[in-house]
């Protein structure tokens, strides 16, 4: 590092002075060595004060956080700032909502009113039982015990009352009722009385009081579904002893005339065919839990899916006690 000679001169002088000073200071240093503890304490005290100051500050700023009277800031923003940001978000979200509605509207426009675009997930309809319960357990001598079940069945069969069904058309047995092009779709008749003992007409307890309960099995509605073959329901008890069962209508057939279904708009009064199965429990079957599996058979529709235990089949348990 070069510096001018004059500077160097000056520096030399200063250096000499500096050295003298240093000597003096060095002595001081030595004296200082012991009092340093003192000094440390001083520093500590100062530091404590500092900390106290700091502690006081946040209190102020904590209140300031909510409302700062000096700047008129509320939660860190002035009124106009709040106004602007809120206005921005209002407009922004308004726009987003508009855009979302627009895309939704466009999407809905592309949909058909009567048939969903994709039906691949319901290609194989499910089976369900009424009364709605996985385990039907009741005391046959206590009506309050099974009242909810028979109420459930009565509700289901409301739409199948003969008085209502009489208004519907009689259709060709064993043939699909195809009416793709007709503007008004006719509905095929399914009278409640066809279920006989299980119609709830003669025996309003659906056999529950006798300990021979009726279970109604229905197949899920699927638009346009035309089961091939001759679909019928077959129930088997999963116990050791074979269980006697009586099907209504006989042979437990789901007649082809009830297919296809045209959707709830075009086919508002449509009723799906039902099959009732009466479990003719004997004395020794009482108080024993019976597991019954009903399957849809005689068609191309699947009833053996690993995952979906209700596709084309249904399992339920019945336990009748005395």
């Amino acid at each position, binding site marked *: *590092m*070069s*510096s*001018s*000679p004059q*500077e160097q001169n000056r*520096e030399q002088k200063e*250096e000499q002075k*500096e050295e003298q000073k240093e000597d003096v*200071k*060095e*002595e001081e*240093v*030595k004296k200082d*060595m012991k009092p*340093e503890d003192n*000094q*440390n304490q*001083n520093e*500590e005290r*100062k*530091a404590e004060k*500092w*900390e106290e100051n*700091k502690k006081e500050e946040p209190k102020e700023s904590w209140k300031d956080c909510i409302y700062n009277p000096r700047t008129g800031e509320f939660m860190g923003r002035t009124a106009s700032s709040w106004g*602007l940001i809120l206005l*921005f*978000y209002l407009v*922004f979200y308004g726009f*987003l909502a508009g*855009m979302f509605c627009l895309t*939704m509207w466009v*999407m*809905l426009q592309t*949909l058909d009113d009567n048939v*969903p*675009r994709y*039906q691949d*997930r*319901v290609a194989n*309809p*499910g089976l*369900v039982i009424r009364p*709605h319960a*996985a385990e039907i357990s009741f005391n046959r001598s206590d009506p309050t015990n099974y009242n909810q079940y028979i109420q459930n069945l009565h509700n289901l069969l409301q739409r199948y009352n003969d008085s209502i069904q009489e208004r519907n058309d009689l259709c060709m047995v064993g043939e699909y009722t195809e009416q793709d092009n007709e503007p008004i779709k006719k509905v095929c008749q399914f009278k409640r009385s066809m279920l006989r003992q299980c119609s709830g007409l003669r025996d309003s307890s659906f056999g529950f009081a006798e300990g021979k309960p009726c279970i109604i099995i*229905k197949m*899920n*509605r*699927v*638009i346009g579904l035309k089961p091939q073959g001759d679909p019928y329901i077959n129930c088997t008890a999963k116990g050791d002893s074979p269980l006697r069962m009586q099907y209504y209508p006989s042979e437990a057939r789901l007649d082809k005339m009830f297919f296809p*279904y045209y*959707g*709830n708009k075009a*086919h508002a009064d449509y009723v799906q065919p039902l099959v009732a199965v009466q479990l003719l429990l004997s004395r020794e079957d009482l108080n024993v839990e019976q597991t019954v599996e009903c399957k849809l058979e005689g068609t191309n529709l699947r009833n053996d*899916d690993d995952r*979906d*235990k*209700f*596709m084309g089949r*249904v399992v339920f348990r019945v336990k009748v006690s005395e």
Partner: protein
Amino acid sequence: MGADRSPKKKKGGTKDMDDLKKEVPITEHKMSIEEVCRKFNTDIVQGLTNAKAAEYLIRDGPNALTPPPTTPEWVKFCRQLFGGFSILLWTGAILCFLAYAIQAATEDEPAGDNLYLGIVLTAVVVITGCFSYFQEAKSSKIMESFKNMVPQQALVIREGEKVTINAEEVVGGDLIEVKGGDRIPADIRVVSAHGCKVDNSSLTGESEPQSRSPDCTHDNPLETRNVAFFSTNCVEGTARGIVICTGDRTVMGRIATLTSGLETGKTPIAKEIEHFIHIITGVAVFLGVTFFILAIILGYSWLEAVIFLIGIIVANVPEGLLATVTVCLTLTAKRMAKKNCLVKNLEAVETLGSTSTICSDKTGTLTQNRMTVAHMWFDNQIHEADTTEDQSGASFDKSSVTWLSLARVAGLCNRAQFKAGQDSLPILKRDVAGDASESALLKCIELSCGSVRAMRDRNKKVAEIPFNSTNKYQLSVHETEDPNDNRYLLVMKGAPERILDRCTTILVQGKEQPMDEELKEAFQNAYMELGGLGERVLGFCHVLLPEDQYPKGFAFDTEDVNFQTDNLCFVGLMSMIDPPRAAVPDAVIMVTGDHPITAKAIAKGVGIISEGNETVEDIAARLNIPVSQVNPRDAKACVVHGTDLKDLSQDQMDDILRNHTEIVFARTSPQQKLIIVEGCQRLGAIVAVTGDGVNDSPALKKADIGVAMGISGSDVSKQAADMILLDDNFASIVTGVEEGRLIFDNLKKSIAYTLTSNIPEITPFLFFIIVNIPLPLGTITILCIDLGTDMVPAISLAYETAESDIMKRQPRNPARDKLVNERLISIAYGQIGMIQALGGFFAYFVILAENGFLPSRLVGIRLNWDDRSTNDLEDSYGQQWTYEQRKIVEFTCHTAFFVSIVVVQWADVIICKTRRNSVFQQGMRNKILIFGLFEETALAAFLSYCPGMDVALRMYPLKPSWWFCAFPYSFLIFVYDEIRKLLLRRNPGGWVERETYY
């Protein structure tokens, strides 16, 4: 932060610690040799007896520094496992398990989601913890390789015989001998010396070797001549001395112990991550509690509401971010390691970038290390050098004979040359082999006079005396250009006053004139003026040797100089500067062991004390008033003597640091360096300390980032530092600053990107609770996003190049410029995230509607939908669905929502590339990012279409059209953000910037 730490440390410090902070308690230097001998029961001639030595060795232990207590490996591992960000994930995992426990206790068939989520969160933390642990273990392995490379030997005299023993076996009282080149094995009291000089630089920072002699010259043991210190080097001569301290009791040992006892604070990035966690936790708890209350109002049971609360809080945890941040930091650390910057602590990668104060005694750190010629003086005038490539800025007559002579001298008397194969590069950018000032001259001459190599070819070099520090000049003898002229040309350059002394004439307007007083005066003025600019000045002279004395073929002997080196003709001066680095934090504090005068001169030289800034003393001298009358506020620069530091109170210290921008601390002891660092930290600065000596190590440890030298640095300093420059090249620090700033920017981008997808991940759950729709996005798919598709794009943002010249920026203000601030949250959560959520919901509604469930049917359907026993749920068309059938549709929706998030994240990663510039300005050159885009898409397609995924992850193949649902939203994100950035650039400081620039 610093304020409350330092007092705590002092309070908490044990008695030992305070003791260590005191100055050295050595008294032996004031005793006579006989007293010392008596004290150690030793003999000045015979040395210790072997028996005594063995006894002392048992009493005092080996003469070696106790290695700093190494943290056990499992503690290090746990620190990785439970530190910083991991806490957030652990909390999330525990909450998940808690929620699962509640569900398991109350429900028959609890959904496994919370359990899986908890397990995955745990796995993520553990895996990332292991990753960073191994990463750091790798660096520490390199560290270990530094240790104990060569076992030290010492020559001791015991029972009158000289024996060479391991330095560890040296004991107090041993008589030892050292010679030039030896490392001093312990603190010794010199009893006899022959021209002995020691290099104390690693201890005191003084660079000049100091002589040692048996006499006590100073009360201070560090200053006195008769003590030589452990681990310093004997440069020349020989000495014999009695060992007075060994091992940890040596001066060096005390410093090392002080260092290892210091606690260090959190790294800035750790603080930022903590701040980030606070924000995230705040948002999570706010959302959770809000929806908890809503759920209660909506009539959910307490337990359900608690599970929702936990679910929402956990959904806010960005699972992938921990891994992303770790990988980003690792990548940067690797990049720096390639440039010979070894980072010991991953988090320290960023610290250099936010450093606001550098404490350094190495001036190379602070300048660009790119010397350029700034001025020249010839023809009695100062000319500004033209540094433009096309020589458009010429300020003087280039045809002047004096200039040509000066250029010839500068070009010939110069050993620097351009490295080969750079002809296509602009001259100023070419690499030069040679020292800094010669390179500067070479470039200057090449620029103004054309090829220097051609000039050298025309004037063949005959002899040369390279520069050395004793004669302070460099000369060479050349043949002349004129083939008929058989005279030799002698050219010389060097320190101006030395050159002037050798000159009797001076070249003015091309004519040689005798050097008279007037011209000498002019020379002095020019010299002073250029020197005053802080420039390095060189003088040039030449002479044509008379042919009669030096005929052609004369054998010039450079060893025993047999030719004239005086009576030369002075040509001119050239001055060079090493421009300070633009990016160097404006607060540079020079901390050195040198004398104040030297320190100040150097500081001025490299621009630490810049031109025009005066110290109090300068002002006093200029105004001719006593120092006490000067208002200290007027002086921006200040030079503080180390010993004055002791007398300063904390307030005074703060005052100095606050009110002066240019500070030089001279003659500082290790303890004082520590005080300086603490002072700066107290004022909120992020302090970097560079150093290589043991004396620097306490400061290195205390600093936010300590940078040590890999080659010249002492072991202790390397242990204390966070970063090690493996090649000792200070230019690497600049790399560190650059990489640190870049990673900070890019981490912001990564976090913005990752956080954005949190909104489309949380909102489905919220709507699930509030409007009772089937769940649009499940836990598994959320994890697929966070830990799958989002990872590579988020990491790829770490490869993003800087948007603008980050080195021209001010270092960030840790109080204001946060890694994650409310604006980032506002953008990510409030704006982009919302658009993304809409995109996802749109896909969800499309799929359900196309399968028969119109939006109007969905609201309120949740209870029936999720009821396993309802197997005839009616859709909008009157069809009936079994539980499993509709669940397949629901999971298809999850998949579509997931794919939609991937689609909108395409746009998000592109907009996150830049914070201010348009993507069109920035370009798409980030290959990793492009790879990331393809990778996430491929992964999404794989997850959706791979056979078996329906069983494994419950993800189902999508119809091709469903991929396009989110496209309009993706496009909207891009357009929206481009417009936002456009407004940002158009109105600097405007509303958009204040509200949205993160």
